[in-house]
């Protein structure tokens, strides 16, 4: 069985002046995979991700996301991906339903589709009581779940999650990862950056970036064996220090 590749990156580079933020990185991501994109602050994770989601143009190298080229087909890429930032960005002064309607609308979903999706989402997350409350009044954990569901509204092939669990408690984080698994099981590819090394263990494969380069890329299990460590945290520290 040949697995379908949804992200193909070869020698992708981004240079700002004389600073190379991302240095010739290459990797492939398979359909339905949970791909962890790790690295310290300033290692180039966000820059690399911005190139993949089509809001920053690469300096050199090639990348193909969901079958589209990052140089020439950014509009097509944007239609095929979902994105959730570390701020769980929703509009605080809009209700849950209004947020869903707005974001569904900008992805061009029909009215019927939006109301269908929005009912489903509210039911799944158990938000019936707060569907007409302003998002600003909800706890952070709820906002996070809603933001994730909103990024899945248009059934994207790939979802990019930029540090999606910052500032929430461990139980909520655990619940959030269950949502991620569920989406991956439905065939959505998950591309996730994180600081939390315990979360890295949940990923199918992880890449670790140090100073613009990908220093390691494998399953968490293989990485631990390779570095003779018993946790991903240890692997990360070894790599970062070397």
């Amino acid at each position, binding site marked *: 069985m040949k697995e379908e590749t949804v992200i193909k990156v070869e020698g992708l580079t981004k240079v700002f002046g004389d600073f190379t933020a991302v240095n010739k990185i290459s990797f492939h991501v398979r359909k339905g995979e949970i791909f962890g994109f790790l690295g310290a602050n300033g290692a180039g994770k966000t820059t690399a991700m911005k190139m993949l989601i089509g809001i920053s143009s690469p300096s050199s190298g090639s990348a193909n996301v969901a079958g589209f080229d990052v140089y020439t087909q950014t*509009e097509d890429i944007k*239609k095929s991906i979902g994105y959730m*930032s570390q*701020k769980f*960005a929703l*509009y605080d002064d809009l209700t849950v339903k209004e947020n869903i309607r707005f*974001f569904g609308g*900008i992805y*061009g979903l029909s009215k019927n589709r939006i109301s269908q999706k929005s009912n489903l989402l509210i039911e799944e997350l158990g938000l019936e009581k707060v569907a007409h409350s302003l998002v600003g009044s909800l706890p952070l954990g709820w906002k996070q779940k809603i933001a994730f569901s909103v990024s899945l509204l248009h059934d994207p092939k790939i979802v990019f999650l930029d540090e999606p669990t910052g500032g929430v408690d461990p139980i909520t984080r655990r619940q959030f990862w269950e949502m991620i698994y569920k989406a991956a099981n439905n065939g959505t590819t998950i591309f996730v950056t994180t600081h939390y090394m315990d979360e890295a263990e949940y990923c199918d494969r992880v890449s670790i970036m140090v100073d613009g380069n990908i220093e390691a890329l494998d399953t968490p299990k293989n990485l631990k064996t390779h570095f003779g460590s018993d946790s991903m945290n240890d692997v990360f520290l070894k790599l970062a220090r070397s």
Partner: protein
Amino acid sequence: MKRFIGFVQKEFYHIFRDRRSLFILFGMPVAQIMLFGFAITNEINNVDIAILDRSQDASTKEIISKISSSEYFSILQHIKEEAEIEEVFKKGRVKAVLYFEKEFSKKLIKQHTAKVQIVTDATDPNVANTISNYINSILSHYQEEQNRAITQDYQIIPQSRMVYNAELKSVYMFVPGVMTVILMLVSAMMTSISITREKELGTMEILLVSPLNPVQVIIGKVFPYIFLSIINAAAIVILSIFVFHVPVKGSLFLLGLESVLFIVTSLALGILISTISATQQTAMMISLMGLMLPVILLSGFIFPISSMPVPLQVISNIVPAKWFIIIVKGIMLKGVGIHIVWKETLVLLGMTLLFIGLSVRKYKIRLE
């Protein structure tokens, strides 16, 4: 188009659910126009004055009665001594003292000259000046009446006529200014704040990753403000016509078009500000310091540009408000058409294009 409507609807939710923006949008314009129209005025009315009359004869009595019968002055008290002048000023109510010398009538008839001194409280120089001018004109009126019988060999009779604002009402001057300030405030400050707010919240990022392109995002964000600013402009014009009786001598349609142009200029400035500021606070500071001050001080709204030092006169040319005020005054008070204000219109148009061009460039650089 459907996406656009959804976007605009969302913008209106933001505006109508935020009391602060609602107040700035609708409270401020009305409050400002009322303040400027009623409270802030260069005219004087019922100013309290005191009289020090050393003669108490027919002439001084006639002059005093002329002054007290005018609506500008009311005589608060009569004093007896020169020393009392300072005392009454210190108390604060009396703004001017009229001091007739001894034997006023007698001197006037025999020597053909008699002296009256006008002492004014110049802690407020504008008021002092106005008072002194008004009293002077009452005195010269009296003099003319006395001289009617006598014909002089040479006589220059100045006849001044104030065109476009015969009664010298200050509200005529404030309406175009206030309109400019409000349109600038609403359009530039509100848009720059609303755009930077999305940046701060992180929703701007989401929008940029969505299939909407950046131009659609920006147009969607500014569209509601164009609409609201037009309503504001209309409200100001209606208030000035019906409450303050300021005439619109020129074409209302042209006034409307020029207002829309100025609104777009301000919006473009607002967008430009939002590209250089990361937070709402910065955007607000830049809008207030960078826009409001020049609009109030350098646009000719309150202080005439021709009396400024040359460097400031030069700088005033880059203030869009200056050109808009010229246009509005022209259309409202003088009734001129586009054949007169086309130059100012072109300047505004050029500035708008420049601001839009700069914002597009800045915006692209940011995206890189």
